[in-house]
């Protein structure tokens, strides 16, 4: 309750042994306990999938914990109740804004709790409230502008104002800097410091360590669903935090490369793309991959990986720079040209890009093999030959399936992914893009897929492995490039000494070595 008596002492929020297991069996959070001090800026750090967003969903009342308690002002609360966040004065700035594009700034801010005069919205009062908010928090936006005409930074201000519009005393910001330019980030931080000085508690979720250090007093590090530690930032150095985020320095067995002098297959020369979406934006990227070489791309999600894949599959074209595959210029090549030139693509997104959920295993397994005389007689598909081929694939890749006529989405994620890999790797590709190839896949299937990617490289493919799974990266990659804000910030040979902790500073944007 915003008007409840403030307990001057004691944390505003306490997590006590909070766990969350989803109905499908995914364990997102295990026994998380920590306090958030009233009036502080508290950062939460962790890799993709560490459990940060689950924690926030619980605190914002979108989900309830499977075990444990959330205490607000020292009292246990049931979070998944209607309007929980509103009642307790919790506001959230989502990473993907929750603004309605066709509404004005004022309409977005008052949406859901409109001031009324008889049956109408009291528009002058609403506008007054918004102007007052913008002045009080020093966040200048035109209250009458249509939201979709605003810049991303201005939209974020609206999002913050919306979060502050209901007597908010705890403000959660989820990766708020991902879409901002450096001066905009600086301005945001100044505003957040002002808010904190005015008594607001701020919970700041970020991948970027230097931002965490610039802003927060205390940090809680999550890894694999567990709290690694909560510590004042003044008491720890970057190396320690990096180690907390990245985990223990356990070494993994590495891939043995056969030849290091094989010809260069893929060459990117100063390639940039233009896009409003940071995930599609790459800047001045140069890289080359030889046959029998696996180049790993590390980096937090949305650092430009999608743009890189777009350029390398013909779905986007570089705004500048050139792309060559096996000595052919591919800068303006379209998707079919890339496929013909020998591109194989193994994405995490199995049903939207790697295959089609509603069609059968056989259909999925032969998709894109147009003109294969063994499978086709004129325009007709040879059913017998296809069944044999697909059964062979199923056997080779140990796909557990009832029959070739099953729908792809009747398989588990790992088995569906194995079938897609079987198709993509069938024609000894020149270039393989493995884009988070084992995300959401069981351990056994991941091991098999790793083996096949290695094998494809040995057979002469140049492999680009994009992954957030550092274990996978270090097992497979011969060379590791770190992508940060669309740029390559590190180019490292993978050797026994390279550990996740060594990659951390680059991924968290602390260092550049390229």
């Amino acid at each position: 309750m915003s008007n409840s008596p403030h307990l001057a002492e004691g944390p505003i929020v306490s997590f006590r042994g909070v766990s969350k297991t989803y109905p499908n069996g995914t364990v997102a959070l295990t026994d998380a306990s920590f306090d958030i001090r009233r009036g502080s800026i508290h950062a939460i750090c962790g890799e993709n999938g560490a459990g940060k967003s689950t924690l926030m969903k619980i605190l914002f009342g979108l989900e309830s914990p499977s075990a444990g308690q959330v205490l607000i002002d020292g009292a246990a609360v049931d979070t998944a109740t209607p309007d929980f966040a509103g009642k307790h004065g919790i506001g959230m700035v989502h990473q993907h804004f929750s603004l309605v594009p066709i509404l004005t700034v004022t309409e977005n801010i008052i949406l859901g709790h409109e001031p009324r005069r008889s049956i109408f919205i009291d528009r002058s009062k609403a506008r007054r409230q918004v102007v007052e908010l913008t002045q009080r928090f020093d966040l200048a936006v035109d209250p009458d502008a249509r939201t979709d005409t605003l810049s991303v930074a201005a939209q974020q201000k609206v999002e913050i104002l919306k979060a502050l519009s209901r007597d908010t005393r705890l403000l959660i910001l989820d990766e708020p800097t991902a879409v901002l330019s450096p001066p905009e980030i600086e301005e945001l931080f100044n505003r957040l410091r002002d808010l904190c000085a005015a008594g607001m508690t701020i919970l700041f979720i970020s991948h970027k360590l230097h931002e965490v250090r610039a802003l927060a007093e205390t940090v809680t590090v999550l890894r694999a669903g567990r709290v690694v530690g909560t510590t004042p930032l003044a008491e720890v150095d970057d190396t320690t935090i990096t180690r907390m985020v990245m985990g223990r320095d356990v070494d993994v067995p590495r891939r043995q490369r056969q030849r290091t002098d094989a010809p260069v297959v893929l060459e990117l020369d100063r390639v940039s793309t233009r896009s409003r979406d940071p995930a599609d934006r790459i800047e001045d990227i140069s890289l080359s991959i030889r046959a029998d070489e696996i180049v790993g791309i590390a980096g937090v999600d949305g650092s430009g990986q999608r743009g890189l894949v777009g350029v390398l599959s013909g779905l986007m074209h570089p705004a500048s720079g050139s792309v060559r595959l096996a000595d052919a210029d591919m800068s303006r090549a379209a998707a079919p040209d890339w496929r013909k030139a020998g591109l194989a693509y193994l994405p995490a997104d199995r049903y939207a890009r790697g295959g089609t959920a509603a069609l059968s295993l056989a259909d999925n397994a032969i998709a894109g093999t147009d003109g294969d005389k063994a499978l086709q007689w004129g325009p007709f598909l040879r059913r017998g030959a296809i069944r044999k081929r697909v059964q062979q694939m199923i056997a080779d890749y140990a796909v557990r399936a009832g029959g070739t006529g099953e729908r792809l989405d009747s398989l588990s994620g790992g088995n569906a992914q194995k079938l897609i890999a079987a198709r993509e790797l069938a024609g000894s590709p020149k270039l393989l893009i493995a884009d988070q190839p084992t995300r959401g896949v069981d351990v056994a299937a991941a091991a098999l897929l790793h083996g096949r990617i290695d094998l494809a490289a040995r057979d002469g493919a140049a492999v680009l492995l994009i992954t957030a799974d550092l274990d996978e990266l270090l097992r497979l990659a011969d060379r590791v490039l770190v992508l940060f804000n669309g740029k390559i910030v590190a180019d490292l040979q993978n050797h026994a000494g390279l550990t996740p902790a060594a990659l951390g500073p680059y991924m968290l944007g602390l260092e550049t070595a390229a």
Partner: protein
Amino acid sequence: MTRSILAGLTEFALTALVIGLVILAVLVPLALSQPDPLEVLRLFVLGPFGTIRHMGNILEAATPTMMTGLAATIIFRAGMFNLGVEGSFFLGGLAAAATAVLLPLTGFVATPAAILVGALVGSLACIVPGYLRVRFGASEMVNSLVLNFAFLFAGVYVLNYVLRDPNAGALMSYKLPGDFTLDRLLQGTRLHTGVIIAFVACLLGGIWLYGTRSGLNVRIVGSSPGFASHLGLASSKLLMQAQIAGGLIAGMAGAIEVLGLYSRFSWTGLPGHGWTGITVAILARENPFLVIPAALFLAYLQVGGDMLARNLDVPSEIVGLVTAAIMLAVTAAAIFRHPAFLRLIRDIKGQEQGA
């Protein structure tokens, strides 16, 4: 393999159960309002199988809807909600009649020529909204919905000013010459060779969709456009192929209906077989082979309704209600995507539960 057949049967059984319940829900109150409720049920359920003539009626009623169902199936499979099938059916019938009235063709080329013209002209009603979608991104659903009526009035204009027989009492065309008819199949029924064409079309449609490369590619584009673009498939071309194929089939259906059943062309409104075709396609789960039983089933309901109308004082429109309810019931996610049902199917298949 046997397990997946068993799982398929389970889904079929659930569909049959749902349809049965829907029919009962509509029919039982109606039957109770009549002096002899059991007679109503008996006539409706068993009546259509009573005589050869009635069974012929089922086939006759299923002929146009098999083809419009096939057309809708192909269009939907490409991921388009193009409702131009109704307009194509009308235009196809008109164009076939116009060919018969205007062109001095005789002998065995006459009928095929009229059907071909019907198919070509009829396909326009599917092609135009399809093209506007592919080229400009305009909603094919709204466009096809309104253009159906535009084509209707264009057709009525042609009927009124070109084909109209001034000596006939009402607005109808000149008599279609005898060479432009489809042969009777069975004495005592109105069953004509069109039914064979419809069966063959569904089989060929199924073979195309499931047995050829371009059919596979259309299904890929329709079910996962993002995957299709990564594969480098020519999506626009495939989408248009499906709209053209669907339009041709629906136009042909109209031509066959007119040449097979009527001596003059007299449609001044949309005949509705396109809408029924959409129901057929949905009931057949967009599978051309299943279009045949789905169309036969709806035709069986239609004949049952007609028998009620003829023998008791029950209007045959009751069938429209049953059909609409079936359409909703078989697409209700709450029934067929229900977690309990999905779990049952998975258990039958005996598959591992992985990540």
